[in-house]
C-alpha cells in the first residue's frame, strides 16, 4: 500500500510539491506571526527587567520608558538635578543613577550613566574594565569597535544632521557581556562627561576651563569639553544639572511602590517600565488586533488551502478509487489509500510550515536584534504543540472527505469520469 502511495506521489510529484508548498507557506505565515508576536512581548519585557523604577520629568510615561529602557532617540523633558539629589539621599533608595542620552557615535547611541548602574545591569566585562576617568568609555556587547578605539561623539545622529563635538574624544576601556537588551548597542560613558560636553554641571567652572585649555591649547573651541583625566565623581548630593531619566533601585518592593507614589505628580513621573509595557500592549490593542487578524487570516488561508487541495484531490482520485474498487481492492484499503495519501501531503506541509515559520521568525528576530539590541526569544511552546495537533487533526478529518465521497459514488460512474 505504501508502495502504491509512493508510486502515485512520485508520478504526481509536481502536484504533490505544490500542495506541500502551499500548505507549508500558509502554515509558516501563521507560525511566524504567532512566534514573532510572542517573542516581541517576552523580549521587551526582559529588556525592561532590570529597570525597577524610572523617574523623569513630568511628561509621557511611555516615552520615558522607550528612551531609557529601549534607548529610542527622542527629546525628553529634563527633571531638575534636585530630584536626583533627593533620590540619592532617600533612605528607601539603594541607589539612583542618572541616564543621559542624545549623542551618538557611528550609529551607536552614547549613554551617560554611572558605574553603579552598569555593575547592576550587566554580568560583568567580556574584556577590559569599567571607565575610571572622565574620558573613558565602555562598549555594549554588540558594539563593533575595538578596545582602545577613540569615540568622537556627535550630537544627535548622523542621519538627523548631527554635528560632532569638536575635540571631545573618549577612549574605550572595556566591553560588557551581553544583556539581550538595547543597551548592548550602546556606548556607555560617565554621565559627568556628558554634562561637561554640554556645558552643564560646571560647578567648578574655572578649574575645568583651566584643565581644558591645558590639554587643548591648539584647538580654538568655544565648546565645552571634557577633562579626560578627571576622576569620576558619582556623588549627586547637589548641583546636578537637568536629567532626562533616573534609574532608581528601591530597597524593597514596598519601597518601590512608595517611591513611585512619592515621585508621581508635580514635576516628575515615576514608572515601573514593566507596567508601562503592559499598558502599552493594551493600548496597542489595534496593532495586536492587526497581528491577530493576520494570524487568523493565515489560518483561514491554511484552511482554504486544505479545502482546495481536498477538492482537487477528490477530482483526481475519483477514477483511481473507482478502478481500485472495480479490480478488487477492499473498501478499507481504498479508504486508507485515499486518506493517507492526502494526509501525508498535508502533514508534511504543516510540519515544513512550522519549520519555515521558526526559521523565518528567528531570522526576523535576528534582524530586529541587530537593529535594536533587544534579543527576542523565538521558540515553540506548549500552545504551539496544541496548534500543531489541532492542524494535524483537522487535516486528518479533511483527508477523509475524498475517501468518504469516493464511496458515495458507484465505481461505474467513477470509472467513466
Amino acid at each position, binding site marked *: 500500500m505504501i*508502495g502504491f502511495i509512493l508510486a502515485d506521489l512520485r508520478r504526481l510529484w509536481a502536484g504533490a510539491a505544490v500542495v506541500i508548498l502551499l500548505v507549508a507557506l500558509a502554515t509558516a505565515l501563521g507560525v511566524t506571526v504567532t512566534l514573532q508576536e510572542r517573542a516581541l512581548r517576552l523580549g521587551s519585557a526582559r529588556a525592561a527587567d532590570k529597570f525597577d523604577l524610572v523617574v523623569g520629568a513630568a511628561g509621557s510615561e511611555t516615552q520615558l520608558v522607550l528612551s531609557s529602557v529601549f534607548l529610542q532617540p527622542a527629546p525628553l523633558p529634563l527633571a531638575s538635578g534636585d530630584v536626583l539629589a533627593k533620590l540619592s539621599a532617600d533612605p528607601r533608595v539603594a541607589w539612583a543613577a542618572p541616564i543621559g542620552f542624545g549623542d551618538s557615535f557611528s550609529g551607536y547611541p552614547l549613554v551617560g550613566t554611572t558605574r553603579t548602574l552598569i555593575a547592576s545591569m550587566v554580568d560583568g566585562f567580556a574584556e577590559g574594565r569599567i571607565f575610571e576617568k572622565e574620558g573613558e568609555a565602555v562598549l555594549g556587547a554588540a558594539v563593533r569597535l575595538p578596545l582602545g578605539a577613540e569615540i568622537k561623539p556627535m550630537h544627535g545622529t548622523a542621519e538627523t544632521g548631527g554635528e560632532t563635538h569638536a575635540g571631545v574624544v573618549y577612549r574605550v576601556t572595556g566591553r560588557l557581556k551581553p544583556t539581550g537588551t538595547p543597551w548592548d548597542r550602546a556606548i556607555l560613558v560617565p554621565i559627568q562627561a556628558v554634562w561637561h560636553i554640554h556645558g552643564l554641571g560646571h560647578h567648578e567652572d574655572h578649574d575645568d576651563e583651566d584643565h581644558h585649555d591645558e590639554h587643548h591649547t591648539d584647538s580654538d573651541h568655544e565648546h565645552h569639553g571634557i577633562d579626560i583625566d578627571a576622576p569620576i565623581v558619582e556623588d549627586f548630593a547637589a548641583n546636578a544639572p537637568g536629567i532626562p531619566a533616573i534609574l532608581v533601585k528601591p530597597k524593597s518592593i514596598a519601597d518601590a511602590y512608595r517611591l513611585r507614589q512619592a515621585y508621581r505628580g508635580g514635576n516628575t513621573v515615576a514608572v515601573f517600565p514593566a507596567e508601562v509595557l503592559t499598558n502599552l500592549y493594551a493600548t496597542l490593542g489595534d496593532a495586536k488586533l492587526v497581528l491577530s487578524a493576520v494570524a487568523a487570516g493565515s489560518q483561514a488561508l491554511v484552511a482554504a488551502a486544505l479545502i482546495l487541495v481536498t477538492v482537487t484531490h477528490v477530482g483526481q482520485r475519483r477514477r483511481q478509487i473507482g478502478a481500485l474498487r472495480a479490480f478488487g*481492492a477492499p473498501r478499507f484499503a481504498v479508504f486508507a489509500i485515499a486518506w493517507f495519501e492526502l494526509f501525508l501531503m498535508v502533514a508534511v506541509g504543516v510540519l515544513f510550515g512550522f519549520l519555515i515559520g521558526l526559521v523565518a521568525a528567528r531570522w526576523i528576530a535576528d534582524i530586529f536584534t541587530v537593529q535594536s539590541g533587544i534579543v527576542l526569544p523565538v521558540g515553540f511552546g506548549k500552545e504551539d504543540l496544541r496548534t500543531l495537533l489541532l492542524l494535524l487533526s483537522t487535516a486528518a478529518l479533511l483527508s477523509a472527505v475524498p475517501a468518504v465521497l469516493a464511496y458515495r459514488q458507484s465505481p461505474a460512474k467513477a470509472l467513466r469520469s
Partner: protein
Amino acid sequence: MTLPETMLSLEVSDLSVSFAGLTSPVLAIGHLTIAAGERVAVTGGSGSGKSTFINMITGLDRAGTGSIRWNGSDITRLSETARDRWRAGHVGLVMQDFHLFPGLSAVDNVLLPARLARVADSAMIDRAHQLLSSVGLVRPGQKIETMSRGEMQRVAIARALLRQPGVIIADEPTASLDSSSGEAVATLLLDMAAAAKSTLIVVSHDPSLIGRLDRRLTLSAGRITADTAAKEQTR
C-alpha cells in the same frame, strides 16, 4: 454433469435501468440466463446499453431494479462493500481503457488488488509471473507507462485472471487497440478463459472475436433483440 465450483451462472430477471432525465430505460431485460462455463458475446450499436449491462452484472453500478443472480445469489441485495468483496472474489474484469496504475511495474499492477486485499501469498506471486509470461510479456518489472497499448491490455488480462475468477467479463477489450494487437489480445483472452474454465462475457464489435464464442446477444436501445447460438451464425 458437475461443473467446476469456480464457474458462475447468471440469471437476470426484470432488470430495468433508468437515468435521470432520460424518458425510456437505458436497459430493460425481462429474463436472461447464461450457463456456467458459457462464452457469450454482447454486441450492439453505440449507446445501446452494453456497458450499462456489464456494470449491472458486475455490481459496478446499482442504478436499476430487478434481480441479478450469480449461482443463485442476488448481488443487487448486497451492500456496497459486500458487492466489492464479491466482485474481487468472482469477477475478472477487462476494460476498454485498461485502468492500470502508472508508476508501478507490470507485475505490481497484476498483484495490486490482491495485495490490497491481503491475499497475495507467494503462490499468487508466482502465478502473477506465470500469467505475465503466458500473455507474452517477458519483462514483468517493466513500468506500465512505458508499455504499448497492446502490452497494457495483456497486463490487464493477467490481472483479471490472477484470482481464478468464476467469470471473466470484458468491455470492448480490443476497441482501443490497432487491428493486429487487437486480434492477438482477443485470441489471448479466449485461450486464457478456456484454460481457466471460466464463464466468459465479452462486449465486442470484432466479428472474428464474436465468431469464436458460443453465443451472441445483440442489444438495441437497451433491449435484447437477438440471442443466437454460434452454429446458427455460421454460414
